[in-house]
């Protein structure tokens, strides 16, 4: 088959050696990551707290339980990851050249 006139990925766009003198970016500073995490945890707590203070328009009765969506979201993701890691992965994972 004919090769395209220009390859889509050009050599000069590839990896450049890391410049050790380069300025550290925002998330290279551990304290920035820590701040971000604390901010996030605060939001999470606030969101759960808000549950007490507003009127819910629920269609199903369980939607009115305290923190239903919070708990469901958390549990769903933990179940998702555990099932994917401990059940699905051993079942379906093969070496990269499995089909070759």
């Amino acid at each position, binding site marked *: 088959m004919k090769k395209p006139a220009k390859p889509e990925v050009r050599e000069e766009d590839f990896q450049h050696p*890391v410049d050790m003198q380069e300025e550290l970016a925002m998330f290279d500073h551990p304290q920035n990551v820590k701040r971000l995490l604390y901010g*996030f945890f605060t939001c999470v707590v606030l969101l759960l707290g808000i549950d007490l203070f507003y009127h819910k328009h629920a269609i199903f009765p369980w939607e009115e339980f305290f923190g239903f969506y919070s708990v469901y979201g958390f549990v769903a993701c933990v179940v998702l990851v555990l099932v994917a890691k401990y059940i*699905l992965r051993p079942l379906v994972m093969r070496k990269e050249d499995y089909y070759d």
Partner: protein
Amino acid sequence: MINALPPAVILILGALPVPFLRGKAKAAWMLLLPVVSFLNLLAIPEGTHWTAGFMDYELVFGQVDRLSLIFGYIFHLISFISILYALHVEDDVQNVAGLVYAGAALGVTFAGDFFTLFVFWEMLTISATFLILARRTPAALGAGFRYFMVHVAGGLCLLAGIVLHVQQTGTAAFGFVGLDGLASTLIFIGVGVNCAWPLLHPWLTDAYPEATITGTIFLSAFTTKTAIYVLARAFPGTEELIWIGTAMAAFPIFYAVIENDLRRVLAYSLINQVGFMVVGIGIGTALAINGAVAHAFNDILFKGLLFMTMGAVMYRTGKINATDLGGLYRSMPWTCTFCIVGAASISAFPLFSGFVSKSMVMEAAAHGNLRLVWFVLLFASAGVFHHAGIKIPFFAFFSHDSGLRCKEAPRHMLLAMGIAAVLCIFIGSFPQFLYSLLPFATDYQPYTASHVIAQTQLLFFSALAFTLLLLSGIYPAEIRSVNIDADWFYRKGGRLFYGLADKACNGLNSWGDRVLVKLVPGLLARFFEEPGGNIQKHGVRLLAEATGEGADLGTTEDRIERRSRTAAYPVGGGVLLAVLFLAVMSLLFFL
């Protein structure tokens, strides 16, 4: 008659001169095509246009109503964005295939009869295959071939259904079909292949990550969404669709969590999103159909946006596996920002587009009192945030520093991503523009305090789960691997079939070669070297065996051979014997 052209014509015919244009003229021409085609579409009033007789049936190239129009609008929009994104591509196979592909999707959308629909349906398959083959790697050639085979099989199923359906109803008009009997079931399954239903889906996760960087943007927009359109017109309210859609929404997220190739993660999440639409069509109420169509509209934009950002990463770094990437927020800040917008949209964050359409489907399920479906969809909503919302941006742009320092994406790519990102936020913030285009009138209000808080809680606690699992090391490490899926059956099955066919056919072949080509002609050749001598030798040998007097066999054979080589036969004696024999035979016969 009106002066506009059938919607599919401009893009498909406009693709023809593309290989003959160069440089800026080509770029301008390709960008102009969807714009002109869109203006053309605006000039077409609702109703039925461009009908032509075909045998005893009527072909309709322009069935224009609110349902087909909204798909027409978004297909034009994403065509423009995709072409802008692909401006650097000088490979005309991709340019032509992309335009024809978009045109074919419009053809399906505005087809008013099954024959027209089928022709454009097959055109989708063929042009899409070229978008995959154009990558020109062995993996892409294999994936393209499998894609083609699966869709041809699906197309034949559809065709069989159409033929039966037309036979039974006496009309080829494309409208509500409903699931009853063999004909409609065949149509249903044929459409289901393109819709990537569970077990029929692996063509999607197999082919999209192997297609060219720009080809995948086109692919993610058209095939599954035209199938959604056809389902919405032909099978609204079909209960089976609710369960098919629920399965579609749920199972891919497990795969997405352990998948390493980020474009394949997006392909799985595409199936997950299409699941929401299929559920909506299955429920079939006005709210549900509206939700399905609105979600298709939004998904084309945000899934396109996510594929574009991953394409840009791949274009600049040559890598797409999560194991190879990370820390790219330094060198590709704009792409990173657009990726986060796409991720927020697909996860249905308030103020982003997914929120205003996904909640319609969820609410329709709740009003239908479909409890299990509702729970699974909620699970899928949390899951999609987990893999598409967090995993994609996190592993590509943050995570550990891969040491890759590349340039920011080219300007035209940034522009394309920017347009899609702005639209995602615009639709999410001002949903009434999208709602006014929906097939049914609606006064749906997504922004109630209840909705917003519930959704935000769901997403933040999903993120919390991700954070805690990652910090504690439980989150599955990215591993270079292949995860087998339903495509195992036709990949391995194909190989098994090939192996069996190889054994059977090539075995027969080599036996034929051994016996008929080498053995028999060899024997015949040796025999006819001296036929007379060979017969005599054989006779002498038989005689010797029978009488047990083989003493002078060697000398007799030598004599025979010498005689036959020098052709010193007593011919007269032989002739005399033959004449006598004939005389005796005739006497016996006549007397």
